[in-house]
């Protein structure tokens, strides 16, 4: 687990990263609630986008490894590609787990109305997995960290708009509503709705199942071994 160890250390090595990683969930707890929509406080509603950004920022480490030729050195080191990836992703996931814990149970501690905090946590965790896998796939398309981040930003702003995070999905035109279903954020929004309004357990399982399916898809595509 050496890689795991060092990835963890690198992720929180400088103060800015540490601040971004752990200050935001704390700030997000105290963001106000909306009047009609969203039903959860804004910090919770927007947390999905934050998770997407953080996963890309974290998996930037892998891209950095590829850019700086460390991936090449690793490929002749006695460590398999699978183990390298798994340890990296595990470390990112651990960081995201911590953030979700801070956000959800911090909210509970400060008396925010979260309806079903435990299920919310579970939802955020599955979404984190899907989003890390997505970030892994995303960086496999790029050779440059900055460019990958910038294009990601432009894509996320569109996804956030039509994926049901920034505005309720019912407001979108018919076609966009259908397109939105293909985006992982749609399922996050659906999951949040389930947590607020309740419903059959089957539905919640479907939401999480879909997120996990997305995770598998992104992982399979993203785990290609790339030596630039």
């Amino acid at each position: 687990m050496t890689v795991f160890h060092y990835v963890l250390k690198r992720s929180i090595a400088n103060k800015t990263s540490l601040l971004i990683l752990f200050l935001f969930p704390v700030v997000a707890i105290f963001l106000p609630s909306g009047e009609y929509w969203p039903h959860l406080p804004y910090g919770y509603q927007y947390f999905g986008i934050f998770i997407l950004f953080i996963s890309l920022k974290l998996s930037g480490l892998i891209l950095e490894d590829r850019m700086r030729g460390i991936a090449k050195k690793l490929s002749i080191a006695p460590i398999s590609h699978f183990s390298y990836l798994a340890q990296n992703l595990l470390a990112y996931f651990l960081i995201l787990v911590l953030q979700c814990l801070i956000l959800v149970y911090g909210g509970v501690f400060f008396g925010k109305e979260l309806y079903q905090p435990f299920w919310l946590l579970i939802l955020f965790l599955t979404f984190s997995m899907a989003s890390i896998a997505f970030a892994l796939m995303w960086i496999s398309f790029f050779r440059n960290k900055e460019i990958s981040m910038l294009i990601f930003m432009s894509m996320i702003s569109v996804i956030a708009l039509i994926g049901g995070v920034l505005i309720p999905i019912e407001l979108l035109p018919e076609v966009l509503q259908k397109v939105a279903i293909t985006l992982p954020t749609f399922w996050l929004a659906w999951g949040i709705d389930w947590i607020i309004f309740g419903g059959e357990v089957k539905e919640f399982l479907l939401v999480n199942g879909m997120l996990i399916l997305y995770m598998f898809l992104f992982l399979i595509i993203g785990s290609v071994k790339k030596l630039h």
Partner: protein
Amino acid sequence: MRVYERYFRFVIFWRIAQLLILAHLWLLSTTDFEGIVFILLLLIVMSIRIRFSITKWSFLIELILCIAFIPYFPFALYGLAIAIFEAAIVGKWWLFFPITILMIVSHPLDLTLIWYSFLTVIVGNFTYHSMKERKQLEKTLDMERKEKYELERIKMELLDAYFEVEKAAELKERNRISRELHDHLGHDLTGALLAIQAYEQVDNEKQAHGLLEQVKIRLSRSTTRLRNTVHNLTPVTYIGVERLQRIVADAEPLFVEFKYNGNVDNVSSQSWMMLEACLKEAITNVSKYSNATKTEVELDVTETLVRLKIHDNGTVTKKSVNGSGIRSLQLRARTLKGSLTIDRQNGYLLVCVLPLQRRRE
């Protein structure tokens, strides 16, 4: 890179196109999320298939998926085309028939669907055969490449053997000379010397005369032997620079000027043969194709390389490709780690540069 890579690319393209068709149908349909679950599952199977090599029978996964989703998403029938395609590109095109029957049975007759799956099976089968052929071709290519390397190796071994033979011949010749000198010449000369010394000591006139007679015989025999030995040593053919001079002299109707400088003894016999071949080829070419009046041949030998330059003042600048003679010479030059270049810009210019190989110890 694999030769049939672009077939893989085509296959991936086709798979994505099929999924896009499904996605389009889903967009048109009234189905909600079931369609996207279905497409996502197909996408996962597809990406697994692209990333890892899985069993030939994996098209059954798609088949089962499609059949399972038909109640929820009617257009899953169109997904069956994916199963047909996956079966066809592993050579199981007959799957088209049961699936088509299934399509006809489970649905009011939809000609577009039948046409679509027919198209798919044709494309899939064609791809399968092209890929198979490509793989076969690649195998042949690999074999040929392997044989080529083998030949190259044998050629290098032959060159090495040539060196060995040359060395062995030299040693043999040296042995012959030393044996000849030792057995006959040495023997007779020693005898003559002893006879002369004895002659000085002897007082008897008749005896002394006999000894002198003997010395005379021995010396005359030695002279003959020496002549014979030396005669045997001299090669009948000319080698080295004399050979080149002779070639130049033989090219009589042409006016060829031959100069050389440097220590020509350092040039190995292979190089001489190569240079000779070059000179012959060049002179043949000049006499055949050129309108030159004067040809200069220069041979420079330095510490590390030997350079032969043949230059005529012809004006024929016909853009001709190098003939097979020149090409084979170039190949030979390359095996000797040298080079041979032709330039027709300003008369016909042939330059052959060969490295001087250090004699192997």
